[in-house]
Structure formats: structure tokens, C-alpha cells
């Protein structure tokens, strides 16, 4: 829908992408789910500006972004806390704010956490791909990451914004404690490795991205040395590549993979995982009933990444 409403990107930042609820339902075609990594922050931002939940927001990484409005826009900045200014004047974080026509809204560097969310009234209205406006960095679907000077169309404003002074949000974690359920390939690891996984402290690796939260720490030793035939992967799967360091799959994760999944992170931990900067201590805490379906290990040809 063309409304003429738009913002112009004046500072794209390190990595700012358009994100919404993602494109579930196409995993069987190799299409990642994608979507905002800190989904609660995106949902809050949309509520604050009067958008429906599927509206697209901007997700920044580490150092924010800045946009110039063409018309007056209600905005809300959520997720990783940061300094917010409108034409250089301080503006609230975590609350609806009015940005007059022609003003520059600057979302500053995260003072804690990694990813700040900028919601704009009407939502970012770039062309959807398979029903979603999310940028999928693994397969290149959806809009490209923002660049300086690019213009983002906005949809029509259709609801009054929320009347709150400030909306409470969880702070970014000093230590990331991820509740996990073991399985489906926990039996590909030695008992020692499972103990290590459930008791030792890992750290968030700087190689983390929208595909996965990579970790550094004691490697997990395999009990089964063969190759795993490719199989479907879920959001939050903790996959263990040959180096033995667990990787937590985030929104842009591949839909099938060939390394064993030792555990799956409870979905309510994924937003915190997306906000944990490199170096943050990570503990995996196995909870819940023992996984069903322990299995013998067979051998069939493995399907590896092309």
C-alpha cells in the first residue's frame, strides 16, 4: 500500500534490518523462519505505537541507526537500552514518542544488550516476500540490510498509540541462563559431554549472528563419530559442529542440518540470547522430563551442505 509516508535512513548503523514475525511454514522448501530476534521487544514497540503485531520494525545491532521523517511519526525504541534523541534532544526509551516531520530520530549505541528495536507508526511497508517483510540474512530473502540514504515506506497509521510513560522491559542478561530440554541427538554425546554441557560455563562468541549464538567453552565429545544424515532443525536447537562448541540456532537458522542437536533452548530464553553480547557467560540448564525416544544409531549416507 502506498501512503507516501516514509522515513529516510541517515545512519544505517552496523547492521539494521527490517523484521516482523517472520515467514514460518516454508521450512520444507529450505526457507528459514527469520523474524525479529528479540520478539517481545518488537511486540512491545508495535503496541506502543499502535501497530498490529505483524507490523515490521527495524532491528539494529550494537550501534543503533538514525532516520529522518517525511511526516510526523509516532515511534518507540525498545530492546537493548540506548540513548534516543530527536534533532539532538533527549527522547524517551521504551515509550511512545512523537517525531515531527523532517526531524532526525537517532537510536544510539546499546548501553547494554545488542539489538534495539525501532517501531514506527504504520509499520515499515517494504514489499513482503512469502508473506513477510523480514530480512533473512542466511538465504537473502526479504529486504537488504539498511544503507545510508535508503527510503523506507510506512503503512497507514490506524490506531492511537499507547498512553504510557514508560513500559517495563527485562534488562539484558549479565549471565545468560538458558533452560534446555535434551534431545533429539543427546545420545550422540558421551555422558561426560552431557555433564559438561549441563554444568560448565560457556561464553558468547563474537562470531554470533542472526543465524546462531555461537559459544566458546569446553568442547562436547561425541559418543558417535559418524556423520548424521541431514534432518529438520527447530528454532532454539543447540547444534554441535565438529569443534564441539554448542551453537544455539536463532531466527535465520537453516531449516535442515547435518550436525547433532544435543538440546533445544526453551523459547522464552531466545530473546535474552539475542541480547547477550560477546563474552557473556552462558549456562545451559537441562530441565523438564527426560527426552523420549532414545534410539540406536544406524548408518545411511549423510547429506551435507552443498
Amino acid at each position, binding site marked *: 500500500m502506498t501512503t507516501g509516508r516514509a522515513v529516510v535512513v541517515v545512519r544505517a548503523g552496523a547492521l539494521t534490518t527490517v523484521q516482523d514475525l517472520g515467514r514460518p511454514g516454508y521450512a520444507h522448501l529450505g526457507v528459514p523462519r527469520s523474524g525479529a530476534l528479540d520478539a517481545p521487544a518488537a511486540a512491545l514497540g508495535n503496541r506502543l505505537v499502535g501497530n498490529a503485531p505483524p507490523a515490521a520494525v527495524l532491528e539494529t545491532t550494537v550501534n543503533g541507526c538514525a532516520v529522518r521523517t517525511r511526516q510526523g511519526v509516532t515511534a518507540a525504541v525498545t530492546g537493548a537500552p540506548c540513548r534516543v534523541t530527536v534533532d539532538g534532544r533527549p527522547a524517551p526509551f521504551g515509550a511512545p514518542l512523537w517525531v515531527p516531520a523532517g526531524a532526525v530520530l537517532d537510536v544510539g549505541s546499546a548501553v547494554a544488550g545488542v539489538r534495539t528495536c525501532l517501531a514506527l507508526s504504520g509499520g515499515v511497508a517494504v514489499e513482503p516476500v512469502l508473506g513477510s517483510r523480514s530480512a533473512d540474512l542466511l538465504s537473502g530473502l526479504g529486504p537488504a540490510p539498511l544503507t545510508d540514504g535508503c527510503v523506507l515506506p510506512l503503512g497507514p497509521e490506524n490506531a492511537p498509540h499507547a498512553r504510557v510513560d514508560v513500559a517495563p522491559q527485562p534488562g539484558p542478561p549479565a549471565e545468560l541462563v538458558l533452560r534446555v530440554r535434551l534431545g533429539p541427538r543427546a545420545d550422540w554425546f558421551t555422558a561426560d559431554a552431557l555433564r559438561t554441557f549441563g554444568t560448565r560455563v560457556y561464553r558468547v562468541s563474537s562470531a554470533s549472528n542472526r543465524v546462531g549464538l555461537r559459544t566458546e567453552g569446553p568442547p562436547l565429545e561425541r559418543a558417535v563419530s559418524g556423520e548424521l544424515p541431514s534432518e529438520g532443525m*527447530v528454532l532454539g536447537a543447540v547444534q554441535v559442529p565438529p569443534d564441539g562448541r554448542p551453537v544455539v540456532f536463532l531466527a535465520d537458522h537453516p531449516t535442515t542440518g547435518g550436525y547433532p542437536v544435543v538440546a533445544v533452548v526453551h523459547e522464552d530464553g531466545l530473546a535474552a540470547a539475542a541480547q547477550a553480547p560477546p563474552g557473556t557467560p552462558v549456562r545451559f540448564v537441562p530441565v523438564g522430563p527426560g527426552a*523420549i525416544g532414545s534410539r540406536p544409531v544406524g548408518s545411511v549416507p549423510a547429506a551435507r551442505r*552443498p
Partner: protein
Amino acid sequence: MRPLEVGAHALLVELDSGEEARALHAELLRRRAAGELRVREIVPAARTVLLDGLDDPRGLAARLPAWSVPPPRSRARDVVELAVRYDGPDLAEVAALWGVSPGEVAAIHSGTEFRVAFCGFAPGFGYLTGLPDRYGVPRRATPRTAVPAGAVALAGPYTGVYPRASPGGWQLIGTTDAVLWDHARVPAALLAPGTSVRFVPQERP
């Protein structure tokens, strides 16, 4: 049939063979279409089917083994034909691995009826099965940093076509001009799990 729990909302159902996985996949699609099964994603793979977005994975895991799963019907009318030039840079190497001439590689490959066992790696990339076991080939020791879109490639028991330019380690035997993925098209993917595929040799213009 072994259902494995994958977190709180998913099951990975492991089968004894790719053929069984194909049959279960077809049955799951049928039951979902009939409204008997609520699930967001059904992802077939080499010998598993992932069911993601289930309300009660444990309940389904308990019921699954009692299901009667008919063998999949072959649907010969739905064959996708891909015109291919057998001109890949690894054709001679594959010919040597198979112990035949490059021309015979083309004849064997184009004489095979393939089926998309599953997708992954990139939108529209299908893992095609159909070649007899003796024609399996290893991946290249050093992956290429750039494989062009449309490259027809082999690895292990699989054939695949790169939907877009990307790095890749499979053995390249040919090229097709077919558009494997176009998100503006319905459906976006030319190849989906279960699709039958035949490669038709094309003379160089």
C-alpha cells in the same frame, strides 16, 4: 518408526529408510489437509520427518506408531523436466569415479528418474535421489567459493541444482537455465519434497 522429542513443540520422527520417510511425509500432508493434524511445519529429510509447531508432541508420539502409513503413490504425471548441458568442470572427474566416459555420465544421469527427497541449504535447493548407490561421489576436498546459479551437481547419493550463486562443495557436472527459485512466482520453488525430476540433455546452442 521412532519419534524423538525436539524441545516443547516438535517431534523428529526417525524412519528406517528414505522410502519410509517419504511415505510418512505423504501421510502427514494428507492428515493435515484433512484437518486431522495441526502442525506448522512438516520437514522431510534423509530419513526423518520433523513436525514443528505441535500442541502436544508427546500425545502424537504415543499415537504415531499405531498409524497405518500406506506406501507413497508415484505420480508420474508430475515430472518436472530440466534441460541440462553436461558441461560442468567436474564432469571428467565424475566420469573417472564412475569408470565411464563423460558422455556416459550424461546418459546415465539423464536416464534416471529423480525425486526430491527433501530441501535445505537454500530456498529451492532440493536433494534429489534416484541414482543407484554405485554412482555415489564424495564432495570436493576443497569447496568452491563461487558456484554459479543453475549448476547441476552431485554429492553422496544426491543430485542438486544450485538455485543461486553461492559457495559449494558438490561435484559440478552440468548447467541448467531453469529458474529453481523465484519468490514472485507461485509456487516460488520449482522443486518441493516429492517432486519427480528428469534431466533432459540439451545441445549447446
